[in-house]
């Protein structure tokens, strides 16, 4: 038996833009062809496009595999092919073992049923038997932290509670292959931590995990290999660090709208008092000049500047509209330069500057340049992270520690449930 838990072999998936059928003339031949299985599958019709094009990869048993890529690159389609919701137009998809997907974990919930009833229903939808659910019921409820509300119809739940219960069920399915699609963003911080721990323990338990995420750091930490999807094709596959680097390099080259039409950022320059530069010291005051060119009439415009760290974490954004309290308008073939002054209170590292041109009231993005410039920051203060808080430290005189038993007794008082410290009795 093969070592691969999942295999995609030259998989293609075709989609149609717009309405599925808009005339009977269109529909009848299409449907007949479908039923007779004589559709010319390798060719594209007028409004068809490949959502996934010639993708091959395999995931070994017990491996954690990441899938990254921009929106619309075909990540979700890959997941749908793997989970059997869709069939590839061409090529083959082989899945060996019980597969469970943490995609929209509360999809099976019915608002009128109670939490308890929904746990059973959703568990069965995800492939568990009633006996399995009953056996793990207490565990699921404890994980969700909703035992008080378990007999309340879920329509009375908050959206966070809803998602927590959904994740709790899905996390207890015990599949051979687990597909995770960006679900780690449900619930509060404590619950998210729980989810990450649960994921890690599922990976350690020997399950094969396929993890789709925009969170590059999580992919780098959790996965042994990663796949980069780009407009339906597999652009890179290999160790996550390399794949992520390829992805970032690609993102730098790409623009939301091709420069030359509409309203767009034509140039971004980073400088200090002495002229354009790329290397700065932590704490330097810099100027970012954003040149905006318009080929049409646009109003209520604002320029947004942002800064991302090497892990794609958004450190900072600011908008001209927010800073100036007003927006601007451009007539056809007009240009304007918007200058931002920033104090680089950053820890040492590489940072990317991104810019947007937006209509600020409707939040329409006219142009987004994800990697307009790169700045390198060096710092004399040894700090890690993203900000430089100009730390100093000093050591006091040594003294005797309180006896160990007393320390243990007073500790809980500091985190009493009501948040206030109880007076020591």
């Amino acid at each position, binding site marked *: 038996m093969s070592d691969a838990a999942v295999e995609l072999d030259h998989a293609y998936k075709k*989609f149609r833009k717009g309405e*599925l059928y808009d005339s009977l003339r269109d529909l009848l031949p299409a449907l007949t062809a*479908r*039923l007779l299985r004589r559709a010319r599958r390798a060719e594209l019709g007028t409004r068809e496009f490949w959502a996934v094009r010639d993708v091959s990869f395999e995931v070994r048993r017990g491996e954690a595999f990441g899938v990254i890529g921009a929106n619309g690159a075909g990540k979700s389609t890959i997941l*749908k092919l793997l*989970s*059997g*919701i*869709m*069939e590839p137009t061409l090529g083959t998809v082989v899945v060996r073992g019980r*597969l469970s*997907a943490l*995609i*929209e974990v509360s*999809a*099976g919930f*019915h608002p*009128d*049923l109670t939490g308890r*009833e929904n746990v*059973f*229903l959703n568990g*069965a*939808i*995800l*492939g*568990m*038997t*009633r006996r399995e659910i009953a056996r793990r019921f207490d565990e699921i409820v404890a994980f969700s932290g909703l035992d008080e509300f378990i007999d309340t119809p879920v329509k009375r739940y908050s959206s966070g509670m809803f998602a927590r219960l959904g994740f709790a069920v899905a996390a207890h399915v015990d599949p051979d292959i687990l597909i995770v699609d960006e679900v780690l963003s449900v619930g509060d911080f404590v619950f998210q931590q729980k989810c990450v721990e649960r994921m890690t323990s599922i990976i350690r338990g020997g399950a094969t995990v396929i993890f789709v995420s925009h969170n590059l750091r999580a992919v780098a930490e959790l996965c042994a290999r990663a796949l980069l999807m780009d407009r339906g094709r597999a652009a890179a596959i290999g160790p996550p660090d390399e794949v992520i680097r390829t992805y970032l390099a690609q993102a730098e080259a790409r623009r939301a709208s091709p420069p030359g039409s509409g309203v767009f950022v034509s140039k971004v320059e980073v400088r200090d008092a002495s002229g354009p530069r790329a290397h700065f010291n932590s704490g330097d005051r810099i100027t970012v000049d954003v040149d905006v060119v318009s080929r049409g009439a646009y109003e209520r415009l604002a320029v947004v500047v942002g800064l991302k760290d090497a892990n794609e974490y958004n450190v900072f954004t600011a908008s001209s509209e927010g800073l100036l309290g007003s927006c601007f308008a451009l007539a056809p073939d007009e240009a304007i330069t918007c200058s931002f002054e920033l104090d680089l209170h950053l820890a040492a590292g590489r940072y990317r500057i991104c810019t947007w041109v937006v209509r600020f009231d409707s939040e329409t993005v006219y142009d987004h340049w994800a990697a307009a410039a790169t700045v390198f920051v060096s710092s004399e203060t040894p700090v890690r992270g993203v900000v430089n808080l100009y730390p100093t430290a000093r050591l006091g005189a040594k003294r005797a520690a309180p006896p160990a038993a007393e320390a243990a007794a007073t500790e809980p008082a500091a985190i009493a449930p009501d948040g206030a410290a109880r007076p020591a009795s």
Partner: protein
Amino acid sequence: MTAATLRQVPAELFRRRDLLYLLTWRDIKLKYKQTVMGFLWAMLMPLVIVSAGLIVRYAFARVSGTTFKLDDLVLVTVKAAPWAFFVSAIRFASNSLVANANLVTKIYMPREIFPLAAVLSQLVDFAVAAVVVVVFLGIARVPPRLELLWIVPLMVLLVLLAAALGVFLSAGALFFRDVKYIVEVILTFAIFFTPVFYEAALFGRWAPLLLVNPVAPLLEGLGAAATGRAMPAPGWLAYSAVVSIGGFLASLSFFKRLEPYFAESV
């Protein structure tokens, strides 16, 4: 490929039997949630049909100068409950895929589970109504005869026929919402073309025309089993059986063939 898929259906359904059970149970539970009458609703629908049937039968008797017999009452009662089941099973099953669209597009499961659960949940309603029918037959002093055993195979065929139509129409409705409206219209008027209030024999030599409707021999058979009248000709019963069983298999095979396109067509 299709044959193989169809052959996989029983095994897959057996593996997911708990899901089938829970979906059936959900459909029943939701139907009567927040209703004052609860399960009484399951009796109401057949009761309305019986009452309507009685009025029609009484009118027939008056017009034609014959007497209104107990037999008439028994016939209408015995046929009304299965008919109510048949209609609501098809109506409910044909909407089942669209109603569960969020599941169809997000999680894999054998999708025929939705129309089948819909039919099963209506079958539970029928069981409730059947209790009332049995009590009524007891009051009407219908003697327990051997012919009553006919009810079992006839009901099985009726369920299969309802499932055949339900499975087929649910897939159709997923691609074209028109199906839903067509089904509504046909189900509303179907009672005129189906011997529920009357017997096919009423139409003399035109009776076969009515029996072409595969539900007709089944309902006639049920009526005959309860009253001890002559069963429909074996040919007609065999015809219904072939249509029900063959239709069910054909419809499942059609369903499985279209299933890969469900998620992108909903």
